[in-house]
């Protein structure tokens, strides 16, 4: 009989239960790797700061310590991603290619809200296919028309929300409380960088794994730039 390997590594005999719908085990173990990757985003007064961990993990093994978990979608929109290895880059670059194709076709950049909506709709249709992508994302960008920064939090079940600060993975449990306590509306770059450093320190202190530091990118009206000193 046909056997189906679940992402946990458990072999189960296939039954009609698996033909359609979720098995309890499958839902829980969609993301095979524990979400050890760090994704953090903070929206400031006229910019968004996005931090991603530099470790490329394979299980608990660190394969690389200079990993870039972000892709620039256009001049003023940055996508950060984590999740199932392979899916992440495949999906992120698919989104990147499509936003760039849009710019080429219509000679105008999609605003951040439209990019987020597009990503959500792609992920939602992927979720209902036979092989859904398991990717969690943060989208940070600056909307030149509305003259405001926007930060979107999206998960692999295609939820999407525009929020002032966001995190994915285990980093949520350590950082959201700090952000809840110290985030203020209309913070400047220095303040937000300070807050991000506090989050970084807490992660280093509390997280049991070495995520090899954070790569931090700033998105504002002038575009995307990397910040040093993390």
């Amino acid at each position, binding site marked *: 009989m046909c056997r189906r390997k679940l992402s946990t590594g458990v072999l189960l005999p296939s039954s009609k239960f698996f033909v359609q719908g979720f098995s309890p085990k499958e839902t829980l173990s969609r993301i095979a790797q524990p979400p050890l990757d760090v994704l953090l985003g903070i929206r400031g007064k006229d910019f968004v700061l996005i931090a991603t961990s530099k470790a490329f993990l394979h299980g608990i093994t660190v394969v690389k310590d200079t990993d870039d978990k972000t892709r620039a979608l256009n001049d003023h929109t940055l996508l950060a991603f984590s999740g199932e290895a392979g899916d992440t880059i495949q999906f992120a670059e698919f989104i990147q290619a499509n936003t760039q194709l849009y710019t080429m076709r219509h000679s105008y950049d999609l605003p951040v*809200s439209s990019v987020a909506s*597009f990503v959500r*709709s792609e992920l939602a249709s992927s979720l209902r296919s036979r092989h859904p992508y398991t990717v969690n994302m943060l989208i940070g960008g600056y909307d030149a028309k509305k003259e405001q920064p926007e930060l979107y939090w999206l998960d692999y079940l295609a939820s999407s929300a525009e929020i002032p600060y966001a995190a994915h993975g285990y980093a949520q449990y350590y950082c959201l409380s700090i952000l809840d306590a110290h985030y203020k509306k209309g913070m400047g770059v220095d303040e937000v960088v300070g807050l991000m450093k506090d989050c970084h320190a807490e992660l280093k202190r509390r997280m049991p794994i070495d995520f090899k530091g954070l790569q931090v990118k700033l998105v504002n009206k002038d575009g995307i730039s990397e910040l040093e000193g993390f």
Partner: protein
Amino acid sequence: MSRRYDSRTTIFSPEGRLYQVEYALEAISHAGTAIGILATDGIVLAAERKVTSKLLEQDSSAEKLYILNDNMICAVAGMTADANILINYARQTAQNYLRTYDEEIPCEQLVKRLCDLKQGYTQHGGLRPFGVSFIYAGYDSLRNFQLYLSNPSGNYGGWKATSAGANNASAQSLLKQDYKEDCNLEEACETAVKVLSRTMDSTTLSSEKLEFATVGHRNGKIYLNIWSAEEIDALLKKHGLGKEEKSSDE
């Protein structure tokens, strides 16, 4: 010897023409006139409704003016049956875009999508092209108010004032004469009735023979309005083009 080349749209004649496309354009030039005028604060579309019979149930709804989405309307010149297919396609396209991008489709993109479809029928299939020209009026945040004209070949262009259908050459030259840069919507409506009154065959105008629609903004929001018979009659009366009111002692 055009016979060999005009039965299929896909074949050029020796002179380099596509007869089926030209015939489609010809069909449109017999349809009721439609005009569109761009103003600083909106756009007006006006169309001539050909009254076929007194016995025909007068539908109060517009026959030649359609709403495509929340910020775009269009006027039809040509075969209504063909237009219905394209309008349905346009509405679907617009909603799909809204669903995907959480934003109304930019006007030119919608026009482009319709024209891509129209163009397809001039190249492959052995099917006839759509016998309709559209005048589109819309608003988007990229380019504000916009007026476009498309024809069966799949060509389109942006205009300040344009016309389609019967007598469109004379309507076009009247528009050229009467169009004022930086006119407001009210002045554009006036120009529209005046141009139509001179290009239409009938001597008296009434809401039975005319259709009007406007796009504009009110309280920072875009509105689309397909005019009611009362609104049209009021406009005609204002410019002294309406029917003479019958005296009550007759």
